[in-house]
């Protein structure tokens, strides 16, 4: 066992920190909660790409850097610590690029991976539908073959990063006769395709968090089929393992954590036993979550897809994020209810934002209940219900 980092890894972490601190000093952006999924900043993404920090673990032949998953975790951990606006490239870097690498044709790899790496291709996801949430295999959006094309009709929902996505990674039914898990396929769809339209959905913080995405006879060339036809459900489970794997599940609202600790110190609240205990308990929970997530990266480093391991770390971590938001609101007392634009608002309204936004943390990318099912059945070998 070795819980330490190599000298190179420590140097890399420092390099990322210096880069981010310089960005903040120059006033390019401010640390913000949820910036990994809501901070759209094409220029930032370009600068990150220039550092070679997108597609860090991918093969060099597609523009990647063949770095380790620990390196990538160090990178994302620091991005989250500083609340950096990384949403433009996050999905492509975290999961869609990986899906193309694992299942896509050589043509698809050559078309998309180098552009993701350069920070020039932004992705959204088309998984959930109004009638298909936790039961994703019941999805109804359909693609029908028509010569060299597929024609897609239907509706996707809860699509994060959708309003600026240039492409969607979409799962659709391609065989209505087959058992429902065996009739789903994955496509990369250009967001500008005729017939594709988006309608923003506002979340309880007042932010445009998602879009409904409608497909009305959207034509997609066959070359944009990812992997095998009708093998999409297997592929989406694989991709979800990665979607759940990262530090963003623990540190999405990290800027609030730093700020509330500082707030308690500055206002002499940290000597009050109740507040002191709450903050220390958060720190304990945070450190344990961090270890659970580093374990996931080590699973990936072995070349395995993390499965129940990322279900565990994600379910655990979103509970921490909710706990953090609640504690911050409790510490701020009546000031916690002030919105970000209000007179007297503390911590730029991060606590309020986080308190409301965190209700969704344990829903996105697999509800906590589904994750616990995965952990119980696949991790512990309990019988499926």
């Amino acid at each position, binding site marked *: *066992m*070795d*819980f*330490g*980092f190599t000298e190179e890894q420590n140097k890399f972490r420092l390099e990322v920190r210096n880069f981010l601190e310089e960005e903040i000093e120059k006033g390019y952006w401010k640390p913000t909660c949820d910036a990994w999924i809501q901070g759209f900043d094409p220029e930032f993404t370009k600068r990150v790409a220039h550092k070679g920090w997108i597609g860090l673990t991918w093969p060099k032949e597609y523009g990647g850097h063949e770095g380790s998953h*620990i390196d990538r975790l160090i990178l994302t951990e620091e991005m989250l610590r500083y609340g950096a606006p990384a949403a433009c490239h996050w999905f492509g870097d975290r999961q869609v690029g990986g899906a193309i690498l694992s299942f896509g044709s050589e043509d698809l790899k050559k078309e998309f991976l180098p552009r993701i790496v350069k920070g020039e291709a932004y992705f959204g996801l088309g998984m959930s539908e109004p009638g298909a949430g936790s039961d994703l295999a019941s999805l109804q959006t359909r693609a029908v073959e028509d010569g060299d094309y597929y024609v897609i009709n239907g509706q996707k929902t809860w699509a994060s990063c959708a309003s600026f996505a240039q492409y969607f990674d979409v799962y659709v039914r391609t065989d209505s006769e087959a058992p429902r898990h065996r009739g789903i396929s994955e496509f990369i769809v250009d967001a500008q395709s005729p017939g594709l339209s988006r309608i923003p959905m506002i979340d309880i913080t007042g932010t445009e968090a998602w879009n409904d995405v409608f497909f009305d006879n959207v034509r997609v060339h066959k070359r944009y089929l990812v992997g095998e036809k009708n093998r999409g459900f297997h592929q989406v489970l694989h991709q979800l393992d990665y979607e759940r794997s990262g530090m963003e599940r623990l540190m999405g609202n990290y800027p609030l954590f730093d700020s509330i*600790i500082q707030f*308690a*110190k500055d206002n002499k609240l*940290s*000597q009050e036993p109740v507040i*002191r*205990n709450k*903050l*220390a*308990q958060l*720190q*304990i929970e945070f*450190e*344990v*979550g961090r*270890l*659970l997530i*580093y*374990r996931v990266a*080590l699973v990936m480093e072995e070349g395995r897809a993390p499965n129940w391991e990322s279900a*565990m770390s994600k*379910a*655990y971590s979103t509970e921490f994020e909710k706990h953090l938001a609640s504690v911050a609101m409790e510490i701020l007392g009546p000031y916690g209810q002030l919105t970000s634009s209000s007179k007297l608002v503390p911590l730029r309204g991060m606590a309020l934002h986080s308190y409301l936004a965190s209700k969704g943390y344990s829903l996105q990318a697999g509800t906590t*209940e589904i*994750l*616990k*099912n995965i*952990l*119980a*059945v696949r*991790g*512990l*070998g*309990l*019988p*499926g*219900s």
Partner: protein
Amino acid sequence: MKLTLTEEQEMLKKTARDFLADKCSKEFIKQMEESETGYSGELWHEMAELGWIGLAFPGKYGGGDMSFLDLAVLLEEMGRACLPSPFFSTVVLGGLPVLDVGSNEQKQEHLPEIIRGEKILTLALTEPGYRNYDASSVKVAANRNNDNYIISGTKLFVPDAHIADNLLCVAKTKPENGITIFLVDAKDPKIEYTVLETIAGDKLCEVVFDQMPVPEASILGQLHRGWSTVQKTIERAAVGKCCETVGNIQRVLEMTVDYAKERKQFDRPIGSFQAIQHYCADMATDVDGARFSTYQAAWMLSEGLPCTKEIAIAKAWIGKASQRVFALAHQIHGAIGATIEHDLHYYTRRGKAAELAFGDADFYQDVVAKEMGL
């Protein structure tokens, strides 16, 4: 970063598991709990022959030259087996501090015998009213009288003191936290022992020193400056208790999952119900969190890195996590788990004792707060 054991450690783990599965049945544990001494001399000597007692001591004293991390692996297996033995007292509480600060004579006198299984040691630290594991809570005094120190007062919850050959007695030798450790003969007639009856059936003692004179040569480490050694010993013991508990709750998780697969109600295994599945998932998460935070602390101790915060995180986490695991294990086992015939209570009872030893979750939560600069 690496979270797997080395081949050697895997072998140690397997040997320990097989040996203890053979030697440490629940019937044996019950006998030991009911016995006066609380341990089997025969088993103790077998453990010495396996090289376990000397594992983390230098070869020149007859030890195995292995690390604290290796010892952690062994402690985990002992926790998994609920092993009743004076191992923890002798090695973690007694032998390692002697190795840390003992004079050459003290090391030569004690370590080879300890390692051969011929000597049992323990630490007399806590006292009536003692909750905080700090120097100012030590009231037992050792006052200078010509060439001797006279030790007086009561120590409480001293494990295995009644069978020990030597005690490390932590005493106050100067106002304002001048603390000295005395390595004393445990059989001195000026010491009186009462074995307390505890939840775990382990042997925690009240130890009364009645004006016991000890020579200056029995000072372990430096006069008045013993607290840093005590502190280090407490930290190591806290991690050691975490290791035992990791083994304990890992086994409880396995027992519970097995039971959930076998036990049928409504014509199906109860483990197929989501309510039970989610309980098991919560247990597994608590166990893995306990494992990683414990081994992080053990690794840092082993590497000689400063790790007060990591130790506090591990002990604070495991204190609460283990209680959640026991609660769910009992809930899933149903009434059978509440019977004395079932094995589950061995783990629950020992887990509670480990939670209370060397600082509970509340204590370490405050250590974390200090480390955060609160």
